[in-house]
């Protein structure tokens, strides 16, 4: 019995839409690019062009030199957005748990839909048929029990393929694939892994903990995913609309700045841990203070990028708390909210080397907290909070 997580990967959506508009493009090499730009790049391409060695992201001029006579089609963002929206609506007909993750990419959780839609495999087939009939595009579809497995599978059986994997088949199939197919492995990390003679996901999965840490701060996380372990749920809420919130009640009410600072830091650590578990980072940090007299103060900061480390989040939260603390009145409750989530630095390659140690420390702390609970290991400063706050109140 295959899993219930379905991934729809409409690879080459722009190219497929171009083919629908102009049927003469079928089975011909062409690319989608903004010709008017001086350094235009290939945004999308047909499978024939891919066979000729053209790749997405390649400079248009280079692609044209590589393949004389290559046809270039202007992108149609409006049609792409419409197609994406329509696909999402069709998916909602099967289950309310539909997660958008980029253009032409959807995750569906079909658990519990059997009585309404039949077995997940049949439901997937019907959805695929509907997408083909209504949009004329043939997405790649994979059914498995984790998001990582489905993602890797759609990158293997494409374009236009379908695969349903039983749980015991998933890790085997994933292990056989090139390491660059694993979500989170970018070109630079791939090169780094290549130097270590790690070409296949299976080789990455076999790394021991200390070897995983040597790859980088998120190495252990990647190794776990390479083993097919991924408990991230299908979240129907768009990442930019998600938020995490935690509050603490002061016992007794206090206007002591240092105490407030410690509470904010404590809350940011809790929420940061929750965000990192989802592989997300926040672009917005907000602090609300409920004063003893019933009034409240609020301040929010927009961050330059999706931040996920405790130290970064704590700094931003402290700043927001200072701005919210506008009255010299005792505070009853402190609420911290992280929102506008984005991917939490999936590319290890982009980490600044000077932060590597902090990243490693963060990863180690997360592993301890995940295994033994947050209270197992806390900064000494938090001990001083003692009975003066109740988290989650």
């Amino acid at each position, binding site marked *: 019995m295959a899993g219930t997580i379905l991934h729809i990967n409409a690879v080459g959506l722009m190219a497929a839409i171009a083919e629908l508009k102009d049927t003469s493009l079928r089975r011909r090499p062409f690319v989608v690019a903004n010709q008017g730009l001086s350094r235009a790049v290939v945004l999308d391409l047909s499978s024939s062009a891919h*066979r000729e060695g053209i790749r997405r992201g390649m400079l248009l001029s280079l692609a044209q030199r590589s393949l004389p006579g290559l046809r270039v089609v202007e992108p149609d963002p409006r049609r792409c957005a419409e197609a994406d929206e329509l696909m999402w609506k069709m998916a909602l007909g099967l289950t309310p748990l539909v997660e958008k993750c980029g253009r032409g990419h959807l995750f569906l959780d079909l658990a519990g839909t059997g009585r309404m839609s039949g077995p997940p495999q049949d439901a997937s087939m019907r959805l695929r048929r509907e997408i*083909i009939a209504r949009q004329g595009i043939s997405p790649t579809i994979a059914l498995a029990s984790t998001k990582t497995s489905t993602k890797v599978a759609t990158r293997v*059986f494409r*374009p*236009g*393929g379908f695969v349903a994997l039983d749980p015991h088949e998933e890790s085997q199939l994933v292990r*056989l694939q090139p390491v660059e197919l694993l979500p989170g492995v970018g070109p630079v990390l791939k090169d780094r892994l290549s130097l270590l003679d790690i070409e296949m996901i299976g080789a990455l999965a076999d790394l021991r903990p200390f070897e995983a840490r040597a790859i980088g701060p998120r190495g252990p996380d990647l190794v776990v995913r390479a083993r097919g372990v991924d408990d991230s749920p299908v979240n129907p809420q768009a990442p930019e609309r998600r938020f995490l919130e935690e509050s603490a009640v002061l016992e007794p009410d206090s206007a002591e700045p240092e105490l407030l600072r410690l509470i904010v830091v404590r809350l940011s650590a809790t929420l940061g841990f929750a965000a990192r578990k989802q592989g997300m980072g926040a672009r917005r940090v907000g602090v609300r203070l409920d004063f003893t007299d019933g009034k409240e103060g609020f301040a929010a900061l927009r961050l330059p990028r999706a931040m996920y480390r405790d130290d970064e989040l704590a700094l931003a939260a402290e700043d927001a708390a200072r701005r919210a603390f506008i009255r010299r009145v005792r505070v009853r409750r402190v609420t911290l909210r992280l929102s506008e989530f984005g991917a939490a630095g999936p590319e290890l390659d982009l980490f600044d080397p000077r932060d590597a140690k902090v990243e490693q420390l963060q990863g180690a702390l997360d592993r301890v907290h995940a295994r033994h609970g947050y209270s197992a290991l806390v900064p000494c400063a938090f001990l001083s909070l003692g009975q003066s706050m109740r988290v989650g109140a």
Partner: protein
Amino acid sequence: MGRGLSFEGIDISFGLSLPGEGGWDAASAPPDWGARIASLRRVLGDFLPDGGFSSAELPIEALAGGSGSRDWLSRGGLREIFGAEATARDFCLRLGRPFVDPDCPAAPYRAAVTECRAVYAKCAAGATTSYAVAPAAGNPTAGGPQAVSDPAISAFLLEFPLGFAYGTRERRHLDRLVRDLEGLPLAIAFYNPTWYSLRVIEALREKNIGLCLMDFPLPRNVAGMANATGGLASAQGLTAQGVAPPRFDMATSSLVYLKFHGFSPARAVAGELEARLASWIPRLEALALQAQTLRVIFQGEDA
């Protein structure tokens, strides 16, 4: 009978896989062959075109090999298989042990390759009319000699058994095979799941080789593959449980070859075969967008 499953601009035909390796003759046919075909026709119902089964998957020796095979074909073997209105218009030839066994000595391998190319050249030149259907022996009233309508070879099928796992030696063997059989319409079936990687799929796509799609009865196991793969799976002592290729559909070339294993009305529970077939209809529709030739082959008795 309905109009049958068809897609615009796609050459689709249904066929039967005939058991055996190293030749085929009337004696190889199970005694109740006619009844099996009739029951298969009932299961396929409206999906089957009016002409019925029009493809036959045979071991290559049936066309190229010894006198027994030729005799069988010229005696009206196709009629024995497909009935009096034999309209088989193409053959899918299963390549045997010299091709799928990396340890096969060079001489028989070279001979097999040469023979394979010769058969293809002969069929391409229209010489297969020599395999005309003649009146069945002992039944002169069945009609006069009748040529098979434009028979051709639509695919050469390489079925690699479970023991053929991805490795350097096997990869080299496959590479040599693909080079030697270049230009032939090839379809490859891997029973060992270690071949289902992006690298292999991309390579097949680059060389325009079809990756054979397979459907197994539930619960899936490979016990029945021993026969399908010439006994190599069991011969190599591999466990038959829990190992199977993934269930997938995808076109790596203009030829899509779908093979139903264990599609036996006599052994299936009620509704099982219909459900298996129905699950493939939308998948074939999707594949028809990417392919030009679709061959759907039923292998009735696997074990």
